[in-house]
């Protein structure tokens, strides 16, 4: 009889400590892996990480810049989380983000300078949510009514959205394009009245809106009837149908909500720090990073807030690395490693590994002796 050194068994409910320990460990493990690669390329990992921490939170300026990046990540993280919770695999956050930005800037330009901020800003923000939801609906409706695979459609729609934006700025004389800069195509600046005001360094109130939305999403999922139905559908569509819950409608609604949240990310980002439909400032992969944020936060809307801050800091550290001659791709690598460890960490949350009991070992030894 072979002796078993480890026993893997499912655990019921992971403790709160473990729910925090696993994501923290995922990040640390990713840093170790990153350190190995940095060491191979002849860098001092500690020095590089020190630089990154410095760039992310080393000064009030750094912190405010990190928070600026946090805003869209909270929302794209929420977009991924609500969808994944329902087993809707919307990985089109990127495209929905861009369409949120296109709608927000389009409405802002159309409104012009004449409308007071108190009205213009909400209208622009709502427009971005509608834009994201509209773009998501292209994948959502066929998914719900025809059963198409949303992983493929949402992914492909990302590229279409990107090219539409490029067309609006580089390929045509659309209202989005800045007429004052014919040689260097760029987005037409949004009127000041449609921009979200800043309150600390360059940081605007968008961060507070994003945090508020995270709290609202939490409330929606865990404290409302609608959210309860959503959790039932996400857990078992058959049981939901049995309980009289309209499954198709729920899936459609959550898909559109997911799109709206990603769109809001685009809206807040463009009405906040960017200020115009400028491809170079918008295509930073917030949609995809949102998936990492959601996974690391274990789809919990509240946990998304700190995780988004962490990822925001990581993204902001990229340019600082470049300045000391290290490719900013290091950051992308670290992000990827974090995601892999976070997903692998799910195993440890779902299962426990233990050594066989003393009694068991005795029995095994006896068995060995008998042989």
């Amino acid at each position: 009889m072979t002796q078993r050194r480890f026993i893997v068994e499912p655990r019921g409910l992971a403790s709160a400590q473990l729910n925090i320990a696993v994501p923290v460990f995922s990040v640390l493990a990713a840093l170790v892996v990153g350190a190995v690669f940095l060491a191979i390329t002849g860098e001092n990992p500690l020095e590089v990480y020190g630089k990154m921490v410095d760039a992310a939170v080393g000064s009030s300026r750094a912190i405010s810049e990190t928070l600026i990046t946090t805003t869209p990540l909270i929302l794209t993280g929420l977009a991924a989380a609500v969808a994944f919770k329902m087993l809707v695999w919307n990985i089109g956050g990127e495209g929905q983000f861009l369409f949120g930005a296109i709608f927000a800037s389009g409405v802002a330009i159309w409104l012009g300078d004449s409308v007071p901020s108190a009205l213009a800003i909400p209208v622009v923000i709502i427009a971005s949510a509608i834009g994201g939801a509209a773009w998501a609906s292209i994948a959502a409706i066929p998914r719900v009514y025809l059963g198409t695979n949303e992983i493929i459609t949402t992914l492909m729609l990302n590229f279409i959205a990107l090219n539409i934006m490029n067309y609006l700025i580089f390929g045509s004389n659309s209202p989005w394009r800045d007429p004052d800069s014919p040689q260097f195509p760029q987005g037409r600046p949004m009127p000041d009245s449609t921009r979200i005001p800043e309150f600390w360094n360059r940081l605007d109130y968008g961060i507070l809106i994003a945090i508020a939305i995270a709290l609202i999403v939490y409330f929606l999922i865990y404290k409302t009837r609608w959210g309860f139905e959503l959790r039932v559908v996400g857990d078992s569509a058959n049981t939901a149908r049995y309980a009289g819950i309209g499954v198709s409608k729920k899936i459609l609604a959550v898909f559109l909500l997911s799109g709206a949240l990603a769109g809001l990310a685009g809206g807040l980002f463009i009405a906040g720090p960017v200020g115009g439909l400028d491809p170079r400032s918008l295509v930073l992969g917030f949609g995809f990073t949102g998936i990492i944020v959601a996974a690391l936060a274990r789809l919990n809307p509240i946990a998304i807030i700190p995780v988004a801050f962490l990822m925001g800091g990581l993204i902001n550290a990229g340019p600082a690395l470049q300045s000391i001659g290290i490719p900013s791709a290091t950051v992308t690598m670290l992000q990827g490693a974090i995601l892999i460890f976070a997903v692998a960490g799910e195993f440890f949350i779902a299962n426990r590994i233990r050594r066989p009991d003393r009694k068991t070992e005795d029995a095994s030894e006896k068995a060995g002796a008998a042989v």
Partner: protein
Amino acid sequence: MADQDLHLAIELRGIDKTFYGVHANENVDFQLRAGEVHALLGENGAGKSTLCSILAGLYRPDAGEMFLNGEPTVFRTPKEALAAGVGMVYQHFRLVPNLTVAENLALGHPDLGQVLNQRELHKTATELGERYGLPVDPAARVWQLSVGQQQRVEILKLLYRDVKVLILDEPTAVLTPQEAEQLFKTMRQMASEGRSVIFVSHKLHEVKQVSDRVTVLRGGKNVGGVDTADAEPADLARMMVGRDLELPTREESDGFGDPVLTVSDLRVDDDRGLEAVRGVSFEIRSGEVVGIAGVSGNGQRELAYGVTGLAPPNSGRVVLEGEDLTEMSVLAHIDKGIAYVPQSRLGMGLAPGLTTEDNLALKAYRRAPYSKGVRLVTSTFKEKGGELIERYDVRGVQPGLPIRLLSGGNLQKALVGREVELESKVLILRSPTRGLDVGATEAVRNLVLAESKRGAAVLLISEDLDELLALSDRLLVIYEGQIVGDLETSEATAERLGLLMAGQSEMSS
């Protein structure tokens, strides 16, 4: 001991297996002789399936040793077990529905190459089937076969590999009495060839009829083994349950109330768009329990779906106290007073990943006190949930844990309790005590009887004849989507029902 002269096919010593810190098997010794039919008897959760899965290489014991023909052996995978001549027919068959019978036999067979000789294969399959009284058409695709036929394929698969030890996990649960008889003949024949058969069951009369020896498990422990010939059914029952026990049955009723549910000429399609319910009519009065007997797959599921609104009928009417519900939504069916206990508890009926409290609120959450406007009142979920857990004796609930961690019996008590709590006019149940131990069966049966006493019209759709005979006032037999028999329980016998269930038409009304 004289036993030692007999050749042991398998011996287990001190087998231990733990799940979630609970012993599924605790220090179990077990001896299987060559050429015997050995019954493994026990309540659900007694550890029968775990022990079988260890024998078949699916689980590895935490401790203990196994000897195969006297040699110490470890099976790491079912494949290793098969190679050593030990095979199992699981409760849920492991066949590929789109392949033919012959192809399923060949699948994974170690001695067959990449190219199949179909003609040879068909010939072997037919011969094997004839020899063991397991006739099947080798060219038929598995999805076309009835459950009983699929089971034959599973057994043939093992015989084709010439296994010496066959483990059959509750094989008769899906068979008509006649099919079960045939299976027993096959089992005897295999034993006479020197093969050993482990027969898992909790039906005493079957154990008595077919086995040479019995081992009884209770709470994961071996509580004794006897030669079947020496065992009285009452003794076996006591060993199994650990106490004397009598399951509740219905009392003679002094007449019923007005008709509550009237179903007329109902026709319902299955998932594949084939008509599975083909013109079913019946009526249930207040306080009456109407049983629907039939072999699984004869339209029972679609009948339940049609009456609960889960599958819109093609034609026919479902009328509740004069109100036509046929075209209404599932939610309207619930609101008007139709409660439903589906067959697969975790597949439909319960949301496995949500907590017990959430699941207990699944039908009531739309109204006060569970919700206020759009808001959920979480405190009500906790309080009401706690009350229901107590009232329906749901054990093992821990706050915050998903309900799927509960045992089958407790899941069912929660599910039936939730539906009973609705105090609805009609209660529909599908195989409500399937796979439950005696204690849980008793609890569920009592709930059903209490509902009928309260005045509910109860529709009991089941494959368990004992249960149907014990609880129903009237029995309908369904065969291929049609009602082929309508009898008072007093005039029904297992034999008569069995014939009707097998499609031997003898319309008695």
